[in-house]
């Protein structure tokens, strides 16, 4: 059995191979190496620390159970990220609840509000330091609906194509395009208003 903590130079591939043979210590090392990334992805989708923790833990348990299926077609972390994304999507479907605000319902079904909005003329990101921009984007992402945010996260952070996003979100490519479009327009608007607030 490997003693991964004593051998930091062991690659993920070697750890995965050991874990596939039942070496739980090797799997624990993989968890330790990549837990932050998996948690961060879950958080970016759920925007709730407790849920993100639970879902990332569930993802690791599923990862262990399915490890024999991992063939190495992608990196281990990419494979694990897919697992946690699917768990988050399942959870978001469970959470889908009646929206209180009719405007949000309109957003979801037809993107009505953003469709009417003029293009943002003030460049919302101009002059912002990278760190400040990241915080603004994070704040704006938090304001999106789960469906809009998920589409944006999967496209921009996970770099998935439309058809892959459609498969994950269990919707049509047309719906993915609509959600992305209105998410981006909403982001532009939110970033602009955040910038205006900071200038006041």
């Amino acid at each position, binding site marked *: 059995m490997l003693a991964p903590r004593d051998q930091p130079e062991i690659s993920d591939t070697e750890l995965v191979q050991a874990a596939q043979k039942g070496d739980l210590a090797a799997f624990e090392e993989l968890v330790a190496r990549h837990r932050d990334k998996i948690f*961060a992805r879950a958080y970016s989708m759920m925007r709730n620390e407790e849920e993100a923790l639970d879902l990332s833990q569930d993802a690791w348990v599923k990862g262990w159970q399915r490890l024999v299926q991992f063939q190495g077609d992608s990196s281990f972390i990419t494979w694990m990220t897919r697992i946690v994304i699917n768990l988050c999507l399942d959870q978001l479907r469970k959470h889908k609840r009646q929206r209180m605000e009719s405007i949000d319902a309109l957003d979801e079904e037809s993107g009505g509000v953003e469709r009417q909005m003029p293009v943002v003329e003030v460049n919302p990101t101009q002059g912002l330091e990278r760190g400040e*921009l990241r915080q603004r984007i994070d704040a704006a992402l938090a304001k999106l609906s789960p469906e809009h945010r998920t589409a944006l996260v999967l496209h921009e952070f996970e770099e998935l194509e439309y058809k892959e996003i459609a498969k994950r979100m269990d919707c049509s490519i047309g719906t993915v395009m609509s959600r992305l479009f209105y998410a*981006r327009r909403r982001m532009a608007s939110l970033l602009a208003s955040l910038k205006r607030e900071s200038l006041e």
Partner: protein
Amino acid sequence: MNEELELKLQAWVDGELSGAEAERMAALASGQSEAGQLVAELREVKMAMMGADIPRSVPESREFFWSKIEGQIQSETQRAPVSKPGLMARWRRFLMPLAGLAAASCVALFTLTHPKPVTNDEFTSTDEAMDTTTFHDQSSGLTVVWLQDNDAARPTSVRPEQSDDMTVTD
């Protein structure tokens, strides 16, 4: 601009179009100011999103986080059906008489005088709504039994910068 055109412009910005369709959108973006402005806005948001994925750390120590995963893995494993009933049946036939003999010996030696010694530290939940997790911190000599109410949301409780000499027993 109608919605279909807007979505096609977006698809072009995202590199989802090719051939004649892509050329058509490129021409529209450069030839029509409304389309050009929309493309500029979409590109601005795309660029802003690049590298905006904020890294986050799990707000629990390595050991505490792992202890919950390990606990789940082990409980899932225990629920799995026995795969070799033949072998288990043979072991049971062999062990049962030995177990009976051992138990009888213990009773004869200890029943009247001495409580049966318990050799393992173990905490279990006696309430279905509760889970327990036990871990030991060797360096500070602390054993912690965390009682988790399954009906409540699970809050974080453990510092990330915990000692490496924590061990978990369940």
